[in-house]
């Protein structure tokens, strides 16, 4: 537990105001390395995902090895290293939802939109995610549409909702930024 109370010397990657939230989270924890997960939560909340630039910044600020930061970021299911689509649909795959038809929901989305768990449609509009259990077992099967929990959903309802998102009036947002590698480093010499 090395405490570096005065260490805020590392400048954020840009003057984007959202970095202040991240800095505040680190300062609140005295820039200690054990606040890494809290800090990553702050980054993800502010930017939607963790990109290489932010991981590098967090590593330097907390004086943590970069591989450690990357290791922690990829260990936890909650952190995403890829930007999500404009809208997200989270299907609960807890036991109650499973036996009440969650696999059918995923199957329906997969067939209709060609995306699986953690993937985003090519137009960047819709991301599909799964949750281990939302704790809404009384409402199984449950799904979350842009933060709103919906209970007792069926295949048709999910597909309809996602279609509405895709065809909605929202402006097309370019989001296919460089996504971090997911499979070691594939470099052949």
């Amino acid at each position, binding site marked *: 537990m090395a405490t570096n109370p005065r260490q805020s010397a590392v400048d954020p990657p840009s003057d984007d105001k959202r970095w202040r939230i991240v800095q505040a989270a680190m300062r609140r924890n005295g820039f200690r390395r054990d606040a890494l997960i809290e800090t990553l939560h702050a980054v993800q909340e502010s930017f939607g995902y963790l990109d290489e630039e932010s991981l590098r910044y967090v590593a330097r600020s907390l004086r943590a090895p970069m591989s450690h930061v990357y290791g922690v970021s990829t260990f936890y299911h909650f*952190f995403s290293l890829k930007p999500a689509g404009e809208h997200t649909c989270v299907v609960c795959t807890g036991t109650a939802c499973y036996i009440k038809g969650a696999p059918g929901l995923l199957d329906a989305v997969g067939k209709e939109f060609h995306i699986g768990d953690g993937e985003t449609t090519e137009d960047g509009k819709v991301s599909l995610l799964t949750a281990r259990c939302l704790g809404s077992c009384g409402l199984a099967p449950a799904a979350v549409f842009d933060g709103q929990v919906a209970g007792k959903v069926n295949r048709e309802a999910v597909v309809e909702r996602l279609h509405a998102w895709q065809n909605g009036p929202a402006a097309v947002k370019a989001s296919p930024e460089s996504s971090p590698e997911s499979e070691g480093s594939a470099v052949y010499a």
Partner: protein
Amino acid sequence: MREKLAEIKAIEEDAKAQYTHTVNVCTAAGCLSSGAAQVKEALGKEVERSGLERWCQVKGVGCLGLCTAGPLVEVESQSAMYGHVTVEDTPAIVGGLNTKPVERLRVPTGTPFFLRQNRIVLENSGRIDPERIEEYIAAGGYSGLVTALTEMTPAQVIDEVTASGLRGRGGGGYPTGLKWTTVAKAPGPDKYVICNADEGDPGAFMDRSVLESDPHRVIEGMILAGYAVGASQGYVYVRAEYPLAIEHLKKAISQARRMGLLGRSVAETTFGFNIDIRLGAGAFVCGEETALIASIEGKRGQPRPRPPYPAEYGLWGKPTLINNVESFANIPPIIRNGGEWYASLGTEKSKGTKVFALAGAITNTGIIEVPMGTSLQEIVYEIGGGVPGGGRCKAVQTGGPSGGCIPDAYLDNPVDYDSLRSLGSIMGSGGMIVMDDSSCMVDVAKYFMEFCMTESCGKCVPCRVGTVQMYRLLDKISTGRATLEDLALLENLCDMVQNTSLCGLGQTAPNPVVSTLRYFRDEYIAHIEEKRCPAGVCKIHSSVAQTDSPSYAVAEVAQ
């Protein structure tokens, strides 16, 4: 401090007495997702519109239990509970306040679901506003803490907990008093108390319900634990997936701080205690003590071999007490009413009550609390109302991915740590999932193995690779491509992974397979020999070719 609490209680009671009616709206996550917030708002407006605001208060409360009928509204003065309430129903409810309750919306409360429960942990759930510390105090909250700090020594607090016979509610069932004693005896000035609120079992939502409905109870339990073991810092490790629970907890901590119940001087004594929240980030393995500690330290949530146990070598190498939410929530009433009182409930070896989350093929899904020793039969068919449509309950799954499936024929067994274990399952944290004939047991086993496989941290070999191999074998069986040799191999792997894995996740990962093999072997055989899924769940490959179990030679094992 005692006077201050009494004063708050008096003010609260006076305030409440001014109202003829109190309308409680369940604003826990279950009801919220079916529109409780809108209902609450509409009720408030309706009360105002009817000019009743001086006689009627609309209050958000914690979980009322019967999640299946949400959003739930309760009118205390009329002892009426309403279910499936919509915004359109609100004029009728308010209109009926001074006349008669609205019968068409009523949920019968004279049913076993309400009558057979014994609520200790949930005593305030659905009764108080979880966002106001005053209501918790008015309900007797923090009085046990003040008594303990002013009249009891830490050893006496531990004695009460030991006398209560409370066992760890996270699933392991380790005697809580013993755990506290070990931490109290551990040398050193720096000790920690951790509340494990990383409820990761799919199908379990008891802890979430407690945190959302009555967060102060957990805080009071933690402070008492800190006093008893000599710790001055506590952490609540809570799932990031539970935003409402986190919000309520944060609010409760700052209220307790302002009230002087947390901080350098707790309740005007020399004892100091603080609580901070640490967010989990989606890793089931972090329910394991040593992995949870690694996660709080900002590392990958990987467990380490025990001993040394966290009680001696825990967070930052210091003695650390880890209990789960429900265990801590039991502490305030134990201190308030005495350990002996608690020990009078339950069975010989499992004392007190247990909270269960009922889900699956059951009429009354929701949260219940029953004395230990209640039979599964009573829980499923009476309290739970049985399978919807009067179908047969095929099995009850307890303990999540670490537990097992108990078939219908054994439901007359009591629910306690030891009998569940003898049935091949475990108490677990309290998730209870009822399955009817539409569930295939091979498929259920495969579901849980898939869970363990993706949640395996990858540190130890048996769990990391063994779960994948077992999953593949289960997949082979469920698609009708397996042989009896595959089944034998699966059983061998179960034994190896159970006995050689590093932590609880791996050691219990084979349980769902072992228990379904014990009671539903015929279903496995039907998949293998007859290429058929009796429940009609599994998709058997149309052209199933008999394949020999593969055997590869280790390429040139050189000397």
